[in-house]
């Protein structure tokens, strides 16, 4: 006989309310996580897509890629297989009256970025939905240079804009920048005159990225914390209501361990069902939300957050359950009907 499930069956409303609250909080957490991840992708997908490695900037750049100028000798000596240099600048292209804000990338030939020839451009596939097709000609408004769209690349974005990959000659002409800004190496840690950053350090050094992510992360973990406190409060209140019954059960010989087990089964059942439903809803949101809304909730993140919810629920309910240990059978008997 499972007393925990019998109690849930008999007191459906009470447990449904707790389940509904857990569902809503976990759904909010999943949606926010999807949004945080989506924004992160929208902001830095082109950098996040790169493998883990070392990002080098000139020392005088003080950790800002916009101020970094790598000299040609360094680039020549350091680049090769899996080592490459790249630059990025914000700009735009036009087609008839339509303007497109883009993040322009150029890189040395060994990079994983697309390498178009002179007079060509490869765009992030999101631009396709804005009416641009392969073969279209786009104009750079400042220089008047014309670029033919030769292809699209998936999930290449930077600073919330679609990426545009161009030839280095074109890039220099558009932005008047001769030197590459960032050197990526797979293994080389120390290069004279350059400062080295890990991928996460490099991402954090990019203006707005860290502030955006920190804000969302704080809200996310605050929600997780709130859910843990809610568990503790709900189960504490339930345990207080059941003090008499627990006391009587202890008096007739029920182990305290069994009362804890009963509470854990209830907590795990409620949390598992609520988190399963909210996880599914979170995944479905990814399909239903408009493309313009940056939302990305990988299954691995969903599972990790679900595990966090289970752990937080367990800790919260166990903490509240400490009261069960303190219940004296005698007090329950003397209090009357349990």
């Amino acid at each position: 006989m499972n007393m925990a499930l019998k109690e849930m069956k008999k007191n459906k409303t009470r447990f449904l309310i707790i389940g509904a609250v857990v569902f809503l909080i976990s759904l909010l957490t999943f949606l926010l996580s999807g949004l945080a991840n989506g924004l992160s992708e929208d902001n830095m997908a082109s950098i996040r897509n790169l493998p883990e490695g070392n990002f080098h900037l000139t020392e005088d750049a003080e950790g800002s890629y916009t101020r970094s100028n790598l000299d040609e000798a360094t680039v020549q000596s350091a680049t090769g297989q899996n080592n490459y240099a790249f630059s990025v600048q914000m700009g735009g292209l036009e087609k008839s009256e339509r303007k497109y804000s883009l993040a322009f990338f150029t890189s040395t030939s060994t990079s994983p970025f697309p390498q178009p020839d002179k007079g060509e451009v490869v765009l992030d596939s999101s631009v396709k939905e804005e009416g641009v097709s392969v073969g279209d000609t786009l104009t750079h408004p400042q220089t008047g240079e014309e670029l033919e769209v030769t292809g699209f690349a998936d999930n290449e974005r930077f600073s919330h804009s679609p990426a545009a990959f161009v030839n280095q000659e074109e890039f220099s002409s558009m932005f008047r920048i001769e030197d590459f800004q960032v050197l990526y190496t797979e293994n080389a840690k120390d290069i004279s005159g350059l400062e080295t950053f890990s991928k996460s350090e490099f991402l954090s050094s990019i203006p707005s990225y860290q502030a955006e992510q920190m804000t969302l992360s704080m809200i996310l973990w605050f929600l997780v914390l709130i859910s843990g406190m809610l568990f503790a409060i709900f189960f504490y209140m339930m345990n207080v209501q059941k003090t008499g019954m627990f006391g009587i059960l202890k008096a007739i010989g029920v182990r305290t361990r069994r009362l804890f087990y009963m509470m854990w089964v209830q907590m795990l059942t409620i949390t598992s069902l609520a988190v399963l439903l909210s996880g599914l809803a979170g995944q479905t949101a990814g399909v239903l939300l408009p493309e313009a809304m940056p939302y990305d909730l990988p299954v691995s993140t969903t599972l990790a957050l679900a595990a966090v919810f289970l752990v937080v629920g367990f800790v919260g309910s166990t903490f509240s359950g400490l009261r069960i240990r303190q219940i004296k059978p005698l007090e329950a008997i003397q209090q009357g009907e349990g």
Partner: protein
Amino acid sequence: METFQLTNIRKTFKNGEVEEEVLKGVNLSLRPGEITALTGASGSGKSTLLTIAAGLQETSEGEIRFKGKNLADVKEEKLRKVRAEEFGFIFQSSHLVPFLTVEEQLFMMLEVAGKKKEEDEVTAILNKVGLSHRRKAYPSSLSGGEKQRAAIARSVIHRPSVLFADEPTASLDSKKSEEVMQLLEDMTKELGMATLLVTHETEMLSFADRVVHMEDGKILA
């Protein structure tokens, strides 16, 4: 033959600097198949004596001898085991588990006592207490008398050696009280239990084999 022997039981409560002795060296023995009724005015110490005998609170001094052991020296986990397997409890209120049906209350008690869940056994007890037709009912749908009969069934389903009944008829009218007491008497004889009954209702004393009167923490001769 004595099943249960209380010797020189003393209980002192401390209230700040003040010490109050509520039991002053009580000696009492319980015998199988007998109801021993403890009576006395409120505050005479009868309920305290019952809860000490049942292992629900510690004694300040004295011995509680049961099956060759002094329960006053037994650790909490062993005491819990004794309560689960050897003792039965009936309280002033029925204290049934609100989300279990009548028969589930009995199955739970068998499980707690580490005994097999015998359907026949449960049916037999429910027949005896006259609740076989209410076996699937939840406590909320039972009358006061039915609740107390269900509580009696739960207290004896695992065939305890000692039954502790603390004012079991206090919340019932006189007719139902007599029914419950008759049931207690029958069960005590049939199962050979040593029953300790605390009551302040003199009408119920006729069901007891022995009446012990307490006053001011002592048993009167």
